[in-house]
C-alpha cells in the first residue's frame, strides 16, 4: 500500500495543505503550513528505510493519463531521485518555519504557494513520463515567480521576470526536443509513448538528430543549474527572493538542472554526451563555473550575492562529477547536490536572520557581532566551514569524492577544481571575518538579539546533517551506489554500441 501510493501522496498532500491554508484565517496560515509540511516530511521519511538500493526504480505507480498521446502518469524513485525527494521534504518545513517573522504581508498566499511549489518540486524528481516531467518542471515556475515577485526585495519585479523567462526559454526548447524524440522513436517502433523507460529501451540510432535534441535538453538544464555562461539570472533571483525563496531556490531548484542531466540528458543521448568534444567542453564550462563563481563571490559586498555566486561554484563541482562519469565522481556529485542544499540553505537562512536584525545585506554593515550574538556567530562559522569543505563536514566528503573520481578521467580538470576549493576559502573566510570577528565598530550592531528558539529550531537540523554527513556518509552512499553504477554502465555501454553500429 505504502509503496504504491507514497509518491502520489507526496504530490497531492501539499496541494491539499495549500487549499486549507487559503481557507483558514490569516494568522493561522503559517502554523497550518508548518503542520502540512511536517506531515509531508513524515510521509517521506519511511522512504529512507523501505528503499532497497539494489532494486532500481521503486514505489512506482503507473496509470493512464492521456492515452491518445501515449501519456501516462508514472512516478517512481531510484537511488538518484530518492535523496532529492528527501532533501525537498526536509527543507520545506524549515523554510516555512524560517519565514515566520520574515513574511509579514499576505501570509496565506505565501504559504500556499510554498506548498504548491513543494508539489511541483517533488513532481520533477519522481516523474517517469516525459510529459509529466515537463508539466511539473513548468508548474513549479509559477509559485517561485510569485514568491520572488511579491515578497522579494527592491528589484523583485526584474528578478522575477528574468528568472521566469530564462527558465521558460530553456524548457520550451526542451519541450520541442521531447516531442521530436517521441516522434522519432515512435515512427520507428510504431508506438508513441512518453514513458521514460520505453524511450530508454528503444533508443539507438537517432543519428545526427540526437545532437540537436541533446542541445535542447542541455540548454534547459544548464540554465537551471546554472552553468556558466547561463548563470546571470541566479544572482538577481537569489538576492531579491525572500529567505525561504532563496533557500528553496538554492536547495532544490538548482538541483533540478543537475538531476535533469543525470536522469535525462545522459541516459537518453549517451553517444552525444560521451562525444569527446562535448564532454570536454562541458567539463571546461564546469571548471570555469567553479573558478569564476569563486572569484566573483570574492568581490561581492552583498552577503546574499556572495552566497549566490558560491552556488555557481558548487554546482560546477556537481557538473564536473557528473561528466567525469566515474563511480566516485557521480556519487560525489550526488552528495554535493545534497550538501549544497543543506549548507547553502543554512547560509541563506543565516543571511536572512542577519537581514531581519539589521535590514541590510551588506557585509560591511556588520562587524564583530560574535560578542553580541554568539550562537548566530557559531552557527555561521560551522556552516561556512562546511561550505568551504572542511574535513569532518559534509562539504568535504562530496567535493573530495568528485575530485578523486574526476582525477581518473580528467586529471588536469581535477587539479584546477581542487584550486577552486581554495578559492572557496578565500571568499568565505574573509566575509566571515568581516561579519563576525572584526572590531565591533558600528553602534547599531551592539544591541542585536541572538538566535530565538524558533531560529535555533531551524538551524539545528541543518547543523546536525552537516556533521552527520561529514562523519558518516556511508548510509547515503550505500543507497545511491547501485543507481550510480547502473547509470554509468548503461551510458558507457549504450554509447559504445551506438558508436560501434554507426
Amino acid at each position, binding site marked *: 500500500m505504502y509503496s504504491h501510493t507514497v509518491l502520489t501522496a507526496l504530490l497531492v498532500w501539499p496541494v491539499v495543505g495549500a487549499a486549507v491554508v487559503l481557507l483558514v484565517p490569516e494568522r493561522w496560515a503559517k502554523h497550518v503550513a508548518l503542520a502540512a509540511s511536517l506531515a509531508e516530511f513524515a510521509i517521506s521519511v519511511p522512504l529512507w528505510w523501505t528503499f532497497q538500493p539494489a532494486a532500481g526504480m521503486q514505489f512506482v505507480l503507473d496509470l493512464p493519463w492521456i492515452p491518445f498521446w501515449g501519456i501516462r502518469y508514472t512516478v517512481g524513485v531510484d537511488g538518484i531521485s530518492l535523496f532529492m525527494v528527501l532533501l525537498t521534504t526536509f527543507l520545506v518545513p524549515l523554510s516555512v518555519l524560517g519565514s515566520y517573522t520574515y513574511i509579514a504581508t499576505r501570509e496565506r498566499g505565501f504559504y500556499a504557494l510554498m506548498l504548491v511549489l513543494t508539489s511541483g518540486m517533488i513532481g520533477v524528481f519522481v516523474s517517469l513520463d516525459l510529459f509529466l516531467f515537463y508539466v511539473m518542471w513548468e508548474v513549479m515556475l509559477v509559485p517561485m515567480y510569485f514568491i520572488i515577485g511579491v515578497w522579494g526585495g527592491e528589484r523583485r519585479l526584474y528578478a522575477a521576470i528574468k528568472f*521566469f523567462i530564462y527558465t521558460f526559454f530553456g524548457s520550451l526548447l526542451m519541450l520541442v526536443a521531447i516531442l521530436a524524440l517521441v516522434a522519432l522513436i515512435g515512427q520507428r517502433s510504431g508506438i508513441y509513448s512518453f514513458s521514460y523507460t520505453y524511450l530508454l529501451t528503444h533508443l539507438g540510432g537517432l543519428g545526427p538528430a540526437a545532437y540537436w535534441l541533446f542541445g535542447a535538453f542541455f540548454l534547459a538544464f544548464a540554465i537551471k543549474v546554472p552553468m556558466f555562461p547561463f548563470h546571470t539570472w541566479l544572482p538577481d533571483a537569489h538576492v531579491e527572493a525572500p529567505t525561504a525563496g532563496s533557500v528553496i531556490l538554492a536547495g532544490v531548484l538548482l538541483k533540478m538542472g543537475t538531476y535533469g542531466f543525470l536522469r535525462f540528458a545522459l541516459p537518453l543521448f549517451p553517444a552525444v554526451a560521451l562525444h569527446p568534444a562535448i564532454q570536454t567542453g562541458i567539463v571546461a564550462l564546469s571548471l570555469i563555473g567553479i573558478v569564476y563563481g569563486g572569484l566573483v563571490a570574492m568581490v561581492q559586498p552583498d552577503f546574499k550575492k556572495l552566497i549566490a555566486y558560491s552556488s555557481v561554484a558548487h554546482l560546477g563541482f556537481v557538473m564536473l562529477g557528473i561528466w567525469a562519469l566515474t563511480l566516485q565522481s557521480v556519487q560525489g556529485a550526488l552528495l554535493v547536490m545534497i550538501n549544497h542544499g543543506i549548507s547553502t540553505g543554512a547560509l541563506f537562512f543565516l543571511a536572512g536572520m542577519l537581514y531581519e536584525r539589521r535590514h541590510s545585506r551588506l557585509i560591511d554593515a556588520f562587524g564583530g557581532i560574535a560578542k553580541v550574538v554568539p550562537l548566530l556567530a557559531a552557527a555561521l562559522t560551522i556552516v561556512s566551514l562546511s561550505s568551504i569543505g572542511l574535513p569532518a563536514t559534509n562539504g568535504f566528503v562530496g567535493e573530495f569524492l568528485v575530485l578523486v573520481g574526476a582525477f581518473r578521467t580528467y586529471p588536469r580538470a581535477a587539479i584546477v577544481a581542487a584550486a577552486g576549493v581554495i578559492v572557496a576559502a578565500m571568499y568565505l573566510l574573509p566575509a566571515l571575518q568581516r561579519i563576525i570577528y572584526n572590531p565591533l565598530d558600528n553602534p547599531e550592531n551592539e544591541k542585536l538579539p541572538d538566535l530565538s528558539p524558533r531560529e535555533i529550531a531551524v538551524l539545528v537540523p541543518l547543523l546536525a546533517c552537516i556533521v552527520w554527513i561529514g562523519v558518516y556518509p556511508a548510509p547515503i552512499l550505500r543507497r545511491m551506489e547501485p543507481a550510480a553504477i547502473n547509470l554509468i554502465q548503461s551510458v558507457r555501454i549504450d554509447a559504445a554500441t551506438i558508436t560501434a553500429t554507426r
Partner: protein
Amino acid sequence: MNLDLTSSADLARALLPELTLTAAALLVLLVAAWRHTGAGDQRIAGWTTVAGLAAAGAAVWWLWWHTARAAGAPSLIAVDDFRFVTDGLFLAAAGLTVLVSFDYLEREGLLVPEYYVLLLFATLGMMLMAGGEDLMVIFLGLELMSVAVYVLAGIDRKSGAAAEAALKYFLLGAFASGFLLYGIALVYGATGTTNLTQIATQVRSLSLERSPMLLLGLALVLVGFGFKVAAVPFHMWAPDVYDGSPTPVTGYMATAVKAAAFAVLFRVLVEAFTGVAAWKPIVWWLAVATMIAGNFIALAQRMVKRMLAYSSIAHAGYVLVAVAVGTWAASAALLVYLFAYTLVTLAAFALLAALGRDGERDVRIDDLAGLGQRRPWLAFALAVCMLSLLGFPGTLGFIGKWYILVAATMVRQTLLAAILVLTSVVSAGYYLPVIMAMYMKPAPEPSDQAHTGARLGRSAAVVVAACVLGLLVLGVRPNRLLDLARSSAVVPPASAATPATGR
C-alpha cells in the same frame, strides 16, 4: 444517418441548424421592432437570442448525435463532424458574448436591440462559411458574417473610435472580399467548378498543379482569408478595429470570426488544394511572419486591449502553424486550439470590459496595479487567462499548443515548432506584466478606493467562471476534448483511402 442532399427534405435536415438560426434571427428582429424602449426590452431580445442559439445548438447536436453524413459526393454544404463541431464553437462563442454584453450595453448606455440580431446573422454567416462545401456558399457566408460584424464594430454611435474602427474594417474588408472573389473566379476558370472536392478531382485529373491561373487564384484566396484571420502582412486593420470596437464585440471578433476563418481556410486548403503543393510554403512563411511580428509588436503595447489585439495576431500565427502542417492531426489540433483560444479570449475580454468603467480603451497594464488584493477573484481569473494564453501547463492553452507542436513534429516540421516556442517565450514578456501589475505592484493611492468600480455583472461572472474552470479542468484532463477533436478532424482526400491511425 445518411442524408440524400438532392431531396429537399434531407437538405432541410442537413441545414436544420442554419434554418433554426435564421428563424431565431427573424424572431429577434421582430422582438426588437416591437419592444425597444428600455434596458428591460433589450434584455428580452438578449434572452431570445440565447434561446435561439441554444435551439440551433440542439439542432447541431442532433445531427452530430445521429452521425449525419451526406450520401454521395457532398455538394454545397458539408455534412461532417468538422462542421458540427465548429458550428458548436461559433454558437457557444456567440452565446457567451450575449451573456457578457448584457451588463456592458447597459453600463455604456447603449440601447441597441439590433445588436443581437446582427450577432445572430454573423453567427449564421460563420456556420455557412465553415460548413460550405462550395466556394460560392463560402463566399456568401463570409459576406453575411462580415457585413454584420462591420456594423457591430460601429454599434456605439457616440464613439469616434468605434466609427473609425467600423469604417476601417469595412473598407479593408471589402477590399479583401474582392481579392477572395477574384481568386474564386480564377480557380473556377482553371478548374471549371467551385465545389471543393471537385476542384481537387479536377486538379488531379487535369494535372493543374502548375497552372498559373489556378496558382494565382489560390494566392488571391489566401490573401482574402489571410485578411480575415489577420495574418501578417494582412493584419494592419486588426489592432485599430479590435481597439475601437466595443469590448464584447472585440472578444467575438477575436474568437468566433477568427475561428470561422481558420476553419474554412483549413477546409479549402485541405479539401480543394491538397494536390497543389504551392500553398504549404506560403502558409509556412505566413505563420512565421505572423508569430514573430504579432509577438514582438505586442511586447511594445501599454494598453491592455491593444496588447490583447496584437496577441490575437500572434495566436493566429500559432494556428497557421497547424494549417501549414495540414495533416489530419493538425486539423484536430486546430480544433482544440480554437476551442482553447475561444474560452480564454472571451473570458479575458469580459474581464477587461468589467475593468474599464468609462472607456476600456484606456486601461493600461499599469492600471491593474493592486487588483490582486482589491479584487482577488477577478485578478485570479485574469491571471489564469494570461497563463493560458501563454500556453502554460495546467491550462487548456498548453494542451492546444502542445497538440500543434505534436502535429508539427510528427511531420518533421521541427523548425516551425521551434519558432513557435521561441515566439511563445517572447509572449511571456507581455502576459507576465499583467500578472505582475495585479499582484506585485501596490494599488495607487488611496488604495482602498482603487478598483471599486471593477465589477462583473452576474451573467458575465458566470461566463468568466465557466471559462476559467473549463481552462483549468480541461488543462489537466483533456481526454474527452481530444477524442472529440480527433473524431471531427478533416481528413485530406488523398489520405482518406488509408485509415487514419491513432496519430
